[in-house]
C-alpha cells in the first residue's frame, strides 16, 4: 500500500509534465551546428524543436523550464551497442547478440530488443538518447567465441530511441545498416581453458580465402535475385535472405563492416569498390595507410572503444587514445561507439579521452551527436539543436564529457524521460538501511 501511494505521488507530477511542448530558457544552449548560446532558449512544440535563440517569446500557456545555470545539449547517440539484446553478459539465456549461420541478412535486431531491459534506463540516465543495436557480439565484433562467431553477414542493425513501451515505439530506423564481418586471417580463438584447437596458418589462410569467395558468391546470387525480381521473371520465388540484401545493393542501406586491422580495412574498401555498395567501417583499431582511401570514397567509421589497450605490444601506449585524432586529421568522418552494453553510459568519456590526446573538442562532441545522425541517415531528425529536429535534449549542470557532470533532465521526442533506474532505487534503498 505504502509503495502504491508512493508510486502515485511520484508519477503524478511526471504525468502532468508529460506535455511535449515547452520552452527552456536561461540556459547555455549547445546546438553543435553553431556556437554556444549564453542565456539561450529552446522552444519545443509537439515534440519538435521550433525555435533556438536568445530571446524567444513564450507562446501562451506553454510550460517554462528554467535553465539557469544549466546547459542544453542534443541527446547523445552511441553508434555501436548491444542494447536490448543482452542483459547479463555471462548468462546465455539473456543474450541474443549472435545467431548461428554465415549469411543472416534477414535477421532484424530490432524485433529482439527488450524494451524492459534494465540497461535502458541506466544508460539514458547519462544522456544517451539513441543507440545503434548491432545483431552481433561485443568488442572485436563478437567473432571471438560462442554463438555468432561464424557470422559473415550478421543481420540488420537497428537505430532506436531509449524510450518506449515496445520496440516499435523505440524505433527510429529499423534497418540502419547491415552488420558484416570482413573475413580475416584469424589466429585460433583464445580459449579460457587454455586448449588450442588444431589450427595452422595454412588452414587460416585457406579459411580466409574460402570465406571471401563465399561472400562474393552470396552478393552475386543476391544480384541475380534482384535482377529476377525486377524483371518479374517466371518462377520467381521470394527469398528472405536475398530480399534483405536489396537495400544494400541499391545503396540505400550501408554495410557496417567490422574491420579491426589495416589489412581488414583494406579488404573492406576493396569489397565496397567491387560491389559498389555503401560502407561504414566499424571498430577499426588502427588506420595505417588507409586514411586517403577512406576519405576519397567518403567512407565513415565507427570508432571505439577509445579507452582500450593498444592493438600490438610495441604500439605507443596511447595508440587507442590518439586514433580518433588520426581519423580526424585524415579527413575521415567518424562517430563513437562503445561496442558494449553495460558501458554505453560511458560513451561521452570515450570521446573525452580522445580530446585529451589531440582531437578537437568540437569534433568529439560531433562524434556522439551530429556525425552519427549523418552516418545513419537521420540528420534531418537527430544530432543537433536545430529547428525542425526531434526534441532529443539533455539538460546538464556542466560538460557531458566530464564524468562529474549530472544530467538533470532528459527529453526524447519532447517527452520528459524518467531518469530513475534500478541502480538509483537500490542506492536510495540501501543508503537508508537502518
Amino acid at each position, binding site marked *: 500500500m505504502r509503495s502504491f501511494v508512493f508510486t502515485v505521488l511520484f508519477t503524478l507530477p511526471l504525468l502532468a509534465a508529460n506535455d511535449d511542448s515547452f520552452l527552456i530558457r536561461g540556459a547555455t544552449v549547445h546546438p553543435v551546428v553553431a556556437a554556444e548560446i549564453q542565456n539561450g532558449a529552446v522552444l519545443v512544440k509537439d515534440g519538435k524543436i521550433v525555435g533556438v535563440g536568445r530571446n524567444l517569446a513564450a507562446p501562451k500557456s506553454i510550460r517554462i523550464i528554467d535553465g539557469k545555470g544549466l546547459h542544453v545539449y542534443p541527446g547523445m547517440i552511441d553508434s555501436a551497442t548491444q542494447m536490448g539484446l543482452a*542483459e*547479463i*553478459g*555471462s*548468462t*546465455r539465456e539473456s543474450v541474443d547478440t549472435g545467431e548461428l549461420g554465415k549469411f543472416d541478412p534477414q535477421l532484424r535486431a530490432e524485433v529482439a530488443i527488450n524494451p524492459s531491459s*534494465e*540497461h535502458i534506463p541506466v544508460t539514458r540516465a547519462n544522456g544517451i538518447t539513441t543507440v545503434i543495436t548491432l545483431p552481433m557480439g561485443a568488442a572485436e565484433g563478437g567473432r571471438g*567465441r560462442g554463438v555468432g562467431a561464424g557470422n559473415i553477414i550478421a543481420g540488420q542493425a537497428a537505430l532506436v530511441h531509449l524510450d518506449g513501451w515496445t520496440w516499435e515505439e523505440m524505433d527510429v530506423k529499423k534497418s540502419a545498416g547491415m552488420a558484416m564481418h570482413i573475413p580475416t586471417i584469424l589466429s585460433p580463438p583464445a*580459449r*579460457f*581453458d587454455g*586448449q588450442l584447437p588444431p589450427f595452422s596458418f595454412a588452414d587460416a589462410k585457406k579459411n580466409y580465402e574460402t570465406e571471401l569467395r563465399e561472400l562474393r558468391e552470396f552478393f552475386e546470387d543476391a544480384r541475380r535475385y534482384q535482377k529476377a525480381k525486377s524483371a518479374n521473371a517466371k518462377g520467381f520465388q521470394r527469398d528472405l535472405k536475398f530480399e534483405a540484401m536489396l537495400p544494400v545493393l541499391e545503396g540505400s542501406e550501408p554495410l557496417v563492416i567490422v574491420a579491426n586491422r589495416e589489412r581488414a580495412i583494406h579488404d573492406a574498401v576493396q569489397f565496397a569498390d567491387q560491389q559498389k555498395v555503401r560502407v561504414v567501417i566499424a571498430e577499426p583499431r588502427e588506420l595505417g595507410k588507409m586514411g586517403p582511401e577512406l576519405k576519397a570514397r567518403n567512407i565513415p567509421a565507427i570508432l571505439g572503444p577509445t*579507452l*582500450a*589497450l*593498444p592493438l600490438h*605490444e*610495441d604500439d*605507443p*601506449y*596511447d595508440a587507442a587514445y590518439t586514433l580518433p585524432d588520426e581519423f580526424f586529421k585524415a579527413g575521415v568522418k567518424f562517430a563513437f561507439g562503445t561496442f558494449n*552494453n*553495460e*558501458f554505453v*553510459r*560511458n560513451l*561521452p*568519456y570515450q570521446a*573525452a*579521452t580522445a*580530446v*585529451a*590526446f589531440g582531437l578537437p573538442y568540437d569534433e568529439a562532441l560531433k562524434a556522439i551527436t551530429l556525425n552519427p545522425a549523418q552516418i545513419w541517415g537521420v540528420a534531418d531528425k537527430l544530432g543537433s539543436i536545430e529547428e525542425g529536429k526531434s526534441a532529443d535534449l539533455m539538460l546538464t549542470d556542466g560538460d557531458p*564529457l*566530464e*564524468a*562529474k*557532470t*549530472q544530467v538533470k533532465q532528459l527529453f526524447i521526442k519532447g517527452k520528459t524521460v524518467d531518469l530513475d533506474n534500478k*541502480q*538509483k532505487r*537500490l*542506492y536510495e534503498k*540501501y*543508503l537508508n*538501511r537502518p
Partner: protein
Amino acid sequence: MKLLLVATAFAVSVLAAPPIVIRNATVLTITKGTLANGSILIRDGKIAEVGDRVNVPANAKVVDASGRFVMPGIIDCHSHIAADSINEGSVSVSAMVGIEDVLNPDDIAIYRALAGGVTTANVLHGSANAIGGKCTVIKMRWGKDAHDMIFEGAMPGIKFALGENPKRAGNPTGQRIGAANVPPRYPATRMGVEDVIREAFTAAKAYQQSWKDYNEKVARGEQVLAPRRDLMLEPLVEVLEGKRLVHAHCYRADEILMLLRVADEFGFKIRTLQHVLEGYKVAKEIAEHGAGASTFSDWWAFKLEAYDAIPYNAAIMTRKGVLVSLNSDSDELIRHLNDEAAKTMKYGGLSETEALSLITINPARQLMIGNRVGSVEVGKDADLTIFDKHPLSNFAKVEKVYIDGQLYFDRDNDLAARPEHATEKKKLLDKEKEQQRRPASGAVRRPAA
C-alpha cells in the same frame, strides 16, 4: 640476504641522485589539503618538503610545473599486472603458490600503467578457488628486475574468492568451453565455498597447534621431532597470526557476510573485500568487522552475481564508515583510475578529496603501506604523478611519474623516442625478412616439395 644486497644497491643509487624540486604546481596532497601554488622538494627518494615555498638546494633539478597538478602516485589494490600466471585452479586451496615467483618485469602493461599515473599495485592470484595463492605488492619500477619491483616491507597477502568463480569448476555443465571433459572439482555451490574455507582453517589451527606443542616441548628441553612443514597451511597460519592480509574476491551480500562470520569464528580479519559489488547492502557489517572494500566504479551485469552492482557502491560504503578503494583488475582500466574516481562524484556525490582518496591513501591504508605512500607528505616515498589538468577531469593526461624520486615516465621523452623505436622495429623486421629469404649459412637446404 640477496634481497638485502639488492635493496642496499638500490638505496645507494637513489642516494646518489640530486634533489628535485617540483614547483608552481597545484599540489593535491590528499591528506593535507590542496596547495594552489605549491612546491615539493624530493631528496633521497623521499618527500623532504612540501609547501608554498621549499628550499632549493644548489644542485637540485628544478621542474617547473606551472598550470600542472601533482598528486600522489595512484595505487591499484587489485591487479594481475606483471604476473606470468594467475590461477592455480587445479585445487580448491592453493595457498602454497605465490605471485612473487612469477613476476615478469618485462610486462608492457607495467609501462602502460605508469603512463596512467599508477605507481603501486597489489598483484593478486586469480579467483578460480576459494583460497587462492599469495599476493605481492609491487611498485611500477619499469626497467628493474622482478626483485626490485617488490614493494619492500609491504605486508604479504593471500587471495580468497567467493561466488561464481570458485564454484564454476564444480559444475561440469558450466559455461567453460571444454569443461565437460574435466572432472568436477569441489565446491559447486556457495555452501561448499564456505566449507572449503572452514575446513582449511580447521586444518591450519591444528597445524599451528602442532608447532606450538613442538616449540613448548623444545623449550622444556625435550627432544622431539619437528612437525612436517606444510606449505599450504603455513600462509593460513600467518593469516591467523595477523602476518598476512586476506584479500577476498566477492560479489553478493550473502557471501560477503558469510566470509566475515567465518573470519570471526576463526579469529582472523579480512583486510579487504575485493570487487564487493553488493558491499553497499552489508556496509554496516563490513564496517563493524573492520574490513576494507576495493570495488569497481561502475562495472555491472557482466555476470549474474554482478546484476545488482551499482555505481553508488563506493559512495554508500564510504558514508557507512568503510575504508574504500577503487581498483582495476584490468591492464586497461588501470590506465585511467583517475577517470574511475571521478565517477564517484556523479554517483553518490563524493567530494574531490574523497574521490581521489579512493585511488591513493585509501588503498595505501588497506595494504598497510599508508605510512610510505598514498599522499604528498614529508617523509613519504616520492611517488608522484603530474597531470596536465585536474586528475578528476576526463580531459587530463599524465605528463610525468616519479617513483622513489626517480622519473619513470615522461610523456615528452616517450614521444621523442618514438621515431627511434619505429626505426629499430623496421630494422628488426627487415632482418627477419632477410633471414627468411636466405637460409642461414650451414643450414640444410630442403629439397623442393
